[in-house]
């Protein structure tokens, strides 16, 4: 073994330490980069060479850089992220709709329903009193307009959700486009996978999981294929992006359409999690349900009141008109409910009498109207029970969504911490490494100095 080769061993030590300092610096500068995994230089003892019948030590060799990537953990984290974003978006929509129902503060439909029956009762106590009759018309009008207001606020919220569905689909397309480009760059490097690009691509996939729940298959060359969970519709295959599009269904709501081999597919109902899944769950489950229930109640109450009122006779002994007009079936009844325009401004047309003969003074039908308050309607509930049922079940749904958002958020946080613990940058660790590499660099430099002086000594021998 020559002294010259000793210099070589020292130099290899210097460059190995440099590689260590380089990876440490990279880690420190990226400690706040989302999705960045701490890297380290992989060094091995360099292959010895054979001389004089035995192996000669040949220093150290940098074979590459590596980071700690855990595909299973990434999968869980993406799933949890989809869950918690979906739950929080859904809870947000429900929370907005919850402020439509002002009933807990003693206003809103609960109060106008009671006021309507209160007006009926006052009408029954003074069937010939124009003030009491006008009271019924006013109460019926506000009852109808409160239903209208609930229905219109819910439908404008639905319209807003539809706009957000459009937005979420655009965000998904932008992310999948970036992922396909990064896949292309990663694949171009053969077996030498560029860690920083992989981190960036993985972070984009995590961002994507905030929009919708996805399945990811990673190949040996580092390329990742992404598809929608549930429907299996592809979003990215290698360097090809498959865009999602939106359509409109019969209800005027936005649908999501994916492309796959063999044609387009409406994937709206199979979407789970993420912003998109949360929006669609809130729209198609929660808002649709409470809207249907309000429609049914409006229809039932209007039918029950109309039936009683039409059997009565007004102040001049003419048979009563329907008190409310609305749709022919329950669908859309809450939004279409109106006080019959023929009654507007005509309190004398209110039918309180049971027979034409007893016309102006009889309050039998007025009493029957007031008693509807405690009468079971077509759905087997009194109007008050029906309304309280709707509000309570909505309140439960809103509360459940909120609890779920909190629970899934903490599950995600704990997975984030695990991810950070396995792959994140620890300042203490980097500082320790920095000292370690500084020491090894200094020691390697000393090796070079010693080799140099040995060489000088040797040259001195010749003199």
């Amino acid at each position: 073994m020559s002294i010259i080769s000793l210099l070589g061993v020292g130099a290899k030590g210097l460059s190995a330490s440099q590689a260590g300092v380089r990876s440490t610096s990279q880690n420190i500068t990226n400690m706040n980069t989302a999705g960045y995994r701490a890297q380290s230089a992989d060094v091995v003892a360099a292959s010895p060479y054979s001389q004089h019948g035995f192996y000669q030590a040949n220093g150290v060799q940098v074979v590459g850089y590596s980071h700690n990537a855990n595909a299973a953990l990434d999968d869980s984290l993406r799933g949890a992220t989809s869950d918690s974003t979906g739950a929080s978006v859904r809870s947000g929509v429900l929370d907005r709709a919850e402020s439509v129902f002002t009933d807990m503060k003693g206003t809103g439909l609960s109060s106008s329903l009671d006021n309507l029956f209160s007006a009926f009762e006052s009408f029954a106590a003074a069937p010939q009193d124009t003030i009491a009759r006008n009271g019924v018309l006013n109460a019926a009008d506000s009852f109808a307009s409160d239903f209208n207001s609930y229905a219109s606020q819910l439908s404008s919220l639905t319209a807003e959700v539809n706009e957000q569905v459009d937005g979420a689909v655009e965000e998904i397309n932008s992310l999948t486009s970036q992922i396909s480009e990064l896949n292309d760059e990663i694949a171009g490097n053969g077996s030498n996978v560029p860690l920083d690009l992989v981190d960036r691509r993985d972070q984009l996939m995590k961002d994507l999981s905030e929009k919708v729940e996805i399945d990811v298959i990673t190949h040996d060359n580092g390329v990742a294929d992404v598809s929608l969970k549930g429907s299996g519709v592809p979003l990215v295959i290698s360097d090809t992006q498959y865009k999602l599009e939106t359509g409109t269904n019969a209800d005027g709501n936005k649908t999501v359409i994916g492309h796959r081999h063999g044609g387009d597919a409406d994937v709206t109902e199979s979407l789970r999690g993420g912003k998109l899944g949360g929006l669609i769950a809130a729209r198609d489950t929660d808002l649709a349900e409470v809207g249907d229930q309000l429609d049914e109640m409006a229809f039932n109450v209007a039918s029950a009141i109309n039936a009683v009122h039409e059997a009565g006779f007004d102040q001049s002994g003419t048979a009563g008109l329907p008190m409310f007009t609305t749709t022919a079936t329950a669908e859309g009844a809450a939004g279409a409910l109106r006080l019959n325009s023929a009654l507007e401004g005509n309190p004398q047309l209110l039918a309180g009498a049971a027979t034409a003969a007893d016309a102006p003074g009889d309050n039998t039908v007025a009493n029957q109207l007031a008693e509807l308050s405690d009468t079971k309607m077509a759905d087997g509930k009194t109007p008050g029970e029906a309304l309280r049922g709707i509000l309570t079940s909505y309140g439960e749904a809103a509360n459940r969504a909120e609890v779920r958002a909190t629970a899934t958020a903490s599950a995600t946080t704990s997975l984030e911490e695990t991810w950070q613990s396995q792959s994140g940058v620890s300042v203490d660790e980097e500082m320790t490494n920095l000292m370690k590499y500084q020491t090894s660099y200094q020691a390697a430099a000393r090796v070079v100095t010693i080799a140099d002086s040995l060489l000088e000594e040797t040259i001195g021998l010749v003199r």
Partner: protein
Amino acid sequence: MRITQQTMYARAMAGINRSRSREATLNQQITSGERLEKVGDDPSATPTSLRQQSALRQIETHEGTLNSANHMLANTDSVLGQVTNLTQRLQEIATKYASDTYNATDRAKGADEVDQIREQLVDLANTKTADGRYLFGGLGNAGAPYDDAGVFSGDTGKLTVSVGSSKIDATVAGGQPFEDAGGGGGASLFSTIDALEASLRHADPTVTEQGPDISRHLTQLKTHVDRIATTREDVGFTMNRVDNMKDGLASAKLSSTEVLSDVQSTDMLSAASELTQVQTALQAAMLTTSKINSLNLMQFM
């Protein structure tokens, strides 16, 4: 576990956010005094709160209905009081002029008074409430039940109002105090008065003994006075019942208010003490967050 700086900062932020959001909720509950603002705030309390709020509104309506019924009943009672006085005056007149010490001129004076009383009674029988109802007009109530001659054109129905599941007769049956419903010879108060007046004026020349002819009306007048008294008694009973129902409503109102306050109002004591706890936790979280930076290896290099 390997703890990175990112984890520590994320935990610190999460802790502060959690305390801040609880602090905001508690502040809101304390300043508004209401524990429940939205239907989802406490779903288990939502139906109770909605039901009690609705019950309170219904009680208010029932109270209004009872007051209106009570008003009509009191009105009836006072009218019947006047009717009784006037009818008793008729008895006095009949008794007085039946005596033979009075001549035809005196009796004609009595007849004039009877005529005036009849007019007053017709007016009373046509008493109309502020909301346009004739108290004695019956159910149909299309117009004044008595014409000037005292002939009844109403029906015998009465106005019944529903208060929850109970029914209250807010008026007496149409014409009841004035019309004889069988018995007593079938004569109405007004036909008795007309007959009395005729007797006082000696309208029927075939009558020879005028005194007994006048006093014979006393029997019928007594029937009328008795019937009016019975009707007044019934009205009194109904008013009593209305009072009892009002008492019942008042106590129902009290208990509904209590239940509502139990589920809906903020428990100030526990809210205030929890707020103190949350604020202490917040202070501690802020203190530790500010110290995350002060202890790492860099400080020693």
